């Protein structure tokens, strides 16, 4: 099913921030906001919840550390016991530096890959650029015309209150 979208193009950071929170407060469905750079406070204006990436980071960091401690124990104390400086075979202090490094590696890489996954990025992916201007000097708010109650003239008035540069209607062919 195709979706009917309404695009508002804005030229200033404070306008996109203002119009986004105004649109959200009026109950319009925000599909996405495009900006040439990371705009501080935009996530708040869009009503996005906190990122879930820290949980991936924590869980995989813990997993990496646990696996590494087990692996060092297995290599130096079980499978091929090695006497290093007369220390006990299972010497936890000696494992700590490498465990720390592996934890950082797991936590860091897993966060990056989880980010690629949730944002649908992979090699060879065609960039879905709503308008070339969002890579340069303009900001675009995309609303979905979700139901019959969606009153275009009211939305246009809202956009105009925030110095909209132009308004476009589009059909999105596929859901995503």
């Amino acid at each position, binding site marked *: 099913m195709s979706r009917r979208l309404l695009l508002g193009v804005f030229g200033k950071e404070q306008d996109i921030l203002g119009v986004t929170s105004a649109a959200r407060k009026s109950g319009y469905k925000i599909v996405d906001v495009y900006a040439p750079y990371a705009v*501080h406070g935009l996530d708040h204006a869009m009503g996005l919840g906190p990122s879930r990436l820290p949980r991936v980071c924590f869980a995989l960091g813990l997993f990496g550390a646990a696996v590494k401690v087990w692996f060092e124990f297995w290599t130096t104390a079980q499978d091929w016991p090695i006497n290093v*400086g*007369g220390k006990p075979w299972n010497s936890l*202090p*000696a494992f700590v*530096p490498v465990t720390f490094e592996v934890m950082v590696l797991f936590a860091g890489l897993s966060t990056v890959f989880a980010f690629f996954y949730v944002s649908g990025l992979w090699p060879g992916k065609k960039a879905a650029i709503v308008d070339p201007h969002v890579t340069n000097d303009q900001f675009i708010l995309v609303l979905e015309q979700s139901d019959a109650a969606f009153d275009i003239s009211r939305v246009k008035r809202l956009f105009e209150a925030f110095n909209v540069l132009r308004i476009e209607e589009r059909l999105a062919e596929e859901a995503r």
Partner: protein
Amino acid sequence: MNLHQAEFNLSPELTRLFSVFVLLGVAVMLVGLGMAPERVWPSLLLVSYFVLGMGLAAVVFIALQYVTNGAWGVAIRRVPEAMTVFILAGALGLAVVFLAHRSLYSWTAAAHDAGNTAAWFKRFWLTWPFFLARAVVYLLVWIAFARAIARNSQLQDRDGDVAYTHRNARLSALFLVVFGITLWLASYDWLMSLEPEWFSTIFGMYSFSGLFASGIAAIIIFAVALQKLGPLEGILREDHLHDLGKLLFAFSTFWAYIWFCQYMLIWYTDIPEETGYFVKRMQGTWRPLFLLNFMLNWTVPFLALLPRATKRTPSLLVKVAVIVLLGRWLDLYLIILPPFMGHKPSFGAWEFGLMLGAIGASALLFFRALRRAAPVPMRDPWLSDSLHHHQ
């Protein structure tokens, strides 16, 4: 928001409470000097160094803001500026210890180390007049820098001249270099030489890591207190606390990193001169304290400060800061006291009394010092950035 607020006065109830703390502390100390001098002198060294360290950490905090052009902390800068008074208070405590009880340092006994010709430099370094002269130099240098930086900031309140900011940036850069070297040496002199046979080349860094973490914890507690009591109401935002929380998280972890560096290298090398330090602190009833130290200074703050919400909720952040300060006390206890207590740690009226006295004196001095200037640097060029600080 009204920046031109009336002079802030601590409520009479709180003033009375803290004065009672100070009186109790002084009474316990005087009685203790007669009844248990072997425990009161090291404890006095402990609280003096603790208080001094918070004051130094406050100057480091201010200096870091200046050299990095950090705007976010400007609105709360009067908190660390007032905390610089702790340097004087700590110096006074140290002076009492050094002048009245030099035998706290076993190397002051004449016979010490006489047969060991290899240690000629140590014998030269650890002579009492030289020790005192160094202490005077460290303390005077720190006090001079702290006063100059705080004074420039307060003079700026009058005319808003940006030259004060530039002057303080230069002073701050110089201070950070001088402080790095002097604190390193001072911690060798005052803490490490309590056990003159033992040495650890990372000790200065270890000493700094705990000092700065405890300083950030104290800044958090005082800032939140001032928000509750009035002067920083509507000025201290969640975003400031979030940044302070991140710093506390970072330096608590830095402490753990340095603590473990020292422990692991000594454990790995396994030389008797070095391991003695840890053997003393890990045997018998010392062991639980040894582990608790790591918990209070790192495990608890690390896990508690991981979620964003803890850093942005004043009541929670203050609780973590209190834990870090308790951890700092325990850390210093484990550095200073074992040589004097033998096989069993003890904690009683002497230690607790001095701790109370230090808390009371710090609070009274802080709120008194705060009254010297407006509660925010009103004409700092970065003030408006700091007041509207966002994460």
